[in-house]
């Protein structure tokens, strides 16, 4: 077994090295900018790229991860556009949350076309959760109960009103025929706080992401009612039905990816795209992605750019509909 993996490793290394040299040369040093504190989602995204790029020898020296906290990535977005627009060595972490904020005009004066969207490397999916001892057993139950007595169900999420977690809850409320505006929504500090509030009975429903909830689900503290993906998720969540299966056609993909500055040359953009494309099939990358609880979502180059812009348009419509 070990010999086998070493062989494949060497093979992929050779492939990547070969590929890299035939395309454009790798930047001498590379940097990944995370628009938040260390330890958050952007940091995780950066580390995914940094670790697997180094492990597959796509880059010769470790990629430096830097942090620029502020406005859930807004500060980093403005920084890249105004100060490092042509820096080809820099990639910046982003997520569907960034697209949502752009759609709401919360990234300052810039819209989604102000940067070059590079690649999405992994995805997480929205989930709706109740405490393990809750009488609610399925999303169907929840929607039925919520449509009758919405005030009995304070909802918690890890973001402000208008954030991804709020949106997921709003989609549920809408399905139950209730106005998102009248939700008793509580903005808590991240997924951990949401789980404790649920366990303590302070909130009755929580909205979050699969990766952060799955461990608490398997530990038997909470129950994931539905995953907001098109198909069922593999692994431990394979028994959890999708929202669509339960008659509520909503999906919420939380993709994680990168953008580069608007003035990065086509050649450099192509180098990054190619490098990520090769990277995405290596066992090292897949192991790194799975270690972070992310599901496959490899969308690179133009396809990713289109995806982000389509998301922004969709989020704009959703936000307007929800009364934001």
């Amino acid at each position, binding site marked *: 077994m070990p010999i086998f993996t070493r062989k494949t490793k060497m093979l992929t290394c050779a492939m990547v090295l070969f590929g890299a040299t035939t395309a454009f040369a790798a930047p001498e040093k590379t940097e990944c900018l995370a628009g938040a504190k260390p330890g958050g989602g952007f940091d995780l995204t950066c580390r995914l790229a940094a670790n697997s790029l180094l492990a597959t020898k796509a880059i010769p020296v470790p990629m*430096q991860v*830097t942090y620029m906290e502020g406005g859930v990535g807004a500060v980093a977005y403005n920084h890249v556009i105004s*100060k490092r627009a042509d820096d080809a060595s820099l990639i910046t972490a982003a997520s569907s949350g960034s697209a949502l904020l752009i759609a709401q005009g919360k990234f300052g004066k810039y819209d989604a076309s102000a940067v070059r969207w590079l690649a999405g490397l992994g995805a997480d999916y929205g989930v709706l959760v109740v405490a393990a001892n809750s009488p609610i057993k399925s999303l169907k139950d929840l929607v039925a109960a919520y449509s009758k007595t919405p005030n009995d169900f304070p909802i918690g999420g890890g973001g402000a*009103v*208008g954030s991804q977690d709020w949106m997921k809850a709003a989609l549920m409320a809408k399905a139950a025929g209730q106005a998102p*505006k009248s*939700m*008793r*929504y*509580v*903005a808590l500090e991240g997924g951990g706080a949401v789980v404790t509030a649920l366990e303590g009975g302070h909130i009755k429903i929580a909205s979050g992401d699969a990766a952060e909830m799955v461990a608490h689900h398997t530990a038997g503290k909470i129950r994931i009612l539905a995953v907001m993906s098109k198909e069922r998720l593999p692994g431990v969540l394979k028994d959890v039905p999708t929202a669509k299966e339960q008659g509520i056609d909503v999906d919420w993909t939380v993709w994680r990816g990168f953008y580069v500055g608007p003035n990065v040359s086509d050649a450099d953009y192509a180098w990054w795209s190619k490098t990520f494309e090769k990277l995405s099939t290596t066992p090292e990358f897949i192991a790194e992605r799975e270690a972070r609880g992310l599901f496959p979502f490899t969308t690179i180059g133009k396809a990713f750019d289109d995806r982000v812009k389509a998301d922004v348009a969709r989020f704009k419509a959703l936000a307007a509909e929800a*009364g*934001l």
Partner: protein
Amino acid sequence: MHGDHGAMLRHGRIGAAVLFVFALAFGWMGSRIEYAFSSDPLGPRTFPVALAIVLAVLAALNFLRPGRNEGWPRGATLVGAVALPALVCATGLLFEPAGFLVAIFVLTTGASRAFGASWPRSIGAGIAHAIGWYVLFGVLLEVQLPAGDLFKSLLKR
């Protein structure tokens, strides 16, 4: 000290008046915070406006009885008290265009001089500060420090 009583009262009252105006401005801005809706009954405006009212009342009380104060500096002391913030301001403005080394050199040379060191000493200290702190923060602790756009554009040419 006794002769200063009137001046002390005046100083204190100016401070209280500034606080009062600040409270009014804060309350006015607070009452105009834009939002679509809030999931709680208080909303984002209540807290700031309430605080502004509290501050306005307290500032009015403070205006009536300003209490003790030190009085503003005059002459050379005033120059120093203005020079130091001006120096920090200049450092901030120089930080990104000129880079860490230059900005810190300016800051520390100026500040050393303000604290009474001779010019040669101040400049020596400035050079030592710039290099020493750069080694500690930029090299050893890997804090992100600006290299300076000026140098970057020179290097490119």
